[in-house]
């Protein structure tokens, strides 16, 4: 598989308060293939989000090299779906979805069909003129997902996009995300704290260590697509993988717990 993202020896140190320096990431080496769906799990505060923000260009790594290979010239490299509600309250659903295209000065006539396509794909077409305050939490994250897809980036970055949703809505959103992703097969990096979610969605699962975040293990998810998320849970392969990931993760979560401190 052709590589879409190559990460070599990436570290990130934050200058904290009182001159304390906090290492968030340490010596990350990772290659992500074009069209691959990679899920990242790790204990809270392990630098998962920092890794995504570096890929998104929102943070600069302290050391190491990140190379993102763009598929086509003219396309944006990355688009991010943020963890918290990040759609603009002052824009309608339609204008939120069109935001990336508008920033790239795509002519309105070209924007229109793209935006309509993703509104329909995410079931938002009836709400195109609504403002975010009129939408439920799930609907808001749909807008956020549609906004990232509509921008047509080489790489999609998703930072626990469904973390704040209730269990049922989350399952629905995972199914929808897979459906949209399977229609477009973009390279995706998905950060989550849920082992189930990581296996549901990913081609591979990256397990990170407690802070400073390092690569603990990378596991292949050998489950056929398209996946039926409801039946997946009872398959032996799913259960095995889930157990393995938890085995790796457990020591790290415990280490984080015993460290017993927050930033």
């Amino acid at each position, binding site marked *: 598989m052709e590589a879409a993202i190559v990460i070599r020896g990436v570290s990130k140190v934050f200058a904290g308060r009182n001159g304390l320096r906090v290492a968030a990431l340490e010596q990350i080496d990772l290659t992500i293939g074009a069209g691959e769906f990679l899920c990242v799990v790790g204990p809270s505060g392990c630098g998962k989000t920092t890794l995504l923000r570096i890929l*998104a*260009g*929102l943070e600069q790594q302290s050391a190491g090299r990140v190379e993102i290979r763009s598929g086509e010239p003219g396309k*944006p490299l*990355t*688009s*991010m779906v*943020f963890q*918290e*509600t*990040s759609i*603009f*309250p*002052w*824009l309608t659903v339609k204008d939120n979805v069109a*935001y*990336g295209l*508008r*920033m*790239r000065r795509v002519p309105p006539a070209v924007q229109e069909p793209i935006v309509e396509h993703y509104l329909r794909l995410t079931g938002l077409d009836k709400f195109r003129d609504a*403002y*975010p*305050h009129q939408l439920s939490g799930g609907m808001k994250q749909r807008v956020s997902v549609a906004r990232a897809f509509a*921008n047509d980036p080489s790489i999609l970055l998703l930072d626990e996009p469904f973390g704040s949703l209730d269990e049922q809505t989350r399952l629905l959103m995972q199914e929808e995300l897979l459906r949209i992703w399977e229609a477009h097969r973009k390279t995706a990096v998905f950060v989550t704290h849920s082992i189930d979610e990581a296996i549901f969605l990913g081609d591979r699962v990256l397990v990170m260590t407690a802070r400073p975040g390092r690569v603990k293990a990378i596991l292949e998810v050998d489950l056929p697509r398209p996946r039926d998320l409801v039946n997946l849970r009872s398959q032996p392969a799913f259960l095995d993988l889930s157990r393995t990931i938890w085995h790796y993760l457990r020591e790290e979560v415990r280490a984080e717990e015993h460290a017993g401190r927050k930033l």
Partner: protein
Amino acid sequence: MGKRWREAFAARTVSVLSPALLLAGWELLARAGLVDVRVFSSPSRILGTLIPALLSGELLYHTWVSVCRIVLGFAAGALPGVVLGLSMGLFPFVRAALQPMVAVTFPIPKLAIMPLILLVFGLGETSKVFTIAVGVFYLVLINTMAGVLNIDRIYLDVARSFGASRRDFYLTVALPGALPMIFAGFKLGMGTALLLIVAAELSAARAGVGYWIWRAYDMFDIERMFSALLMMSALGFVFSYALDVLERWVIPWKPPSSSAG
């Protein structure tokens, strides 16, 4: 439902009755000679002056002169207030450069610099418009900056990650995000403008509601003075209503619950 309706009805009745009672009491005390009508007049006397003054167009002319000064001064203060406020909110460097000057000059009462303004701009229209502009400017500037600083960081991240240009930061994040606070600044500024117009028209004015009030004072014509006060009250009401309407039109995304009242 019946109980709530009755409570609402009672509240509304009280809101109408209490000022009516006050006016009636005032009138009665004036007629009984318990209140000095030379200073406090009485509702009927004031009405007797107000209505002819309105019908002759005299009071409306002076009101119009004041309204023009207020609107011009408001615009001249609010516009740079918004632009500078957005810049100071968005760019720490601009904030660092301008904050000290704002902090030092803001607390100076605007009335205290009126003599200086008169020296610089003379006795004409400019000095009155400028006085109002200065008062409005600070309130709008400070509220706009606070509005931008209060915008959730996430929206700046979103704009950055989607490749927003500097202009896009102003127009798609800072301005809409700060609009509710900008309007709060407008409303405070309007209150200040009404305060300043009266003072500004004290010196070297030939027309205006403020001029009218000071003239009435000179001539000890209490009824004319009260007529102008009623006009000021009406002006304040109209301006704040206009700002409310404008706000609803400019900020359609604001949930209705928070804009009520």
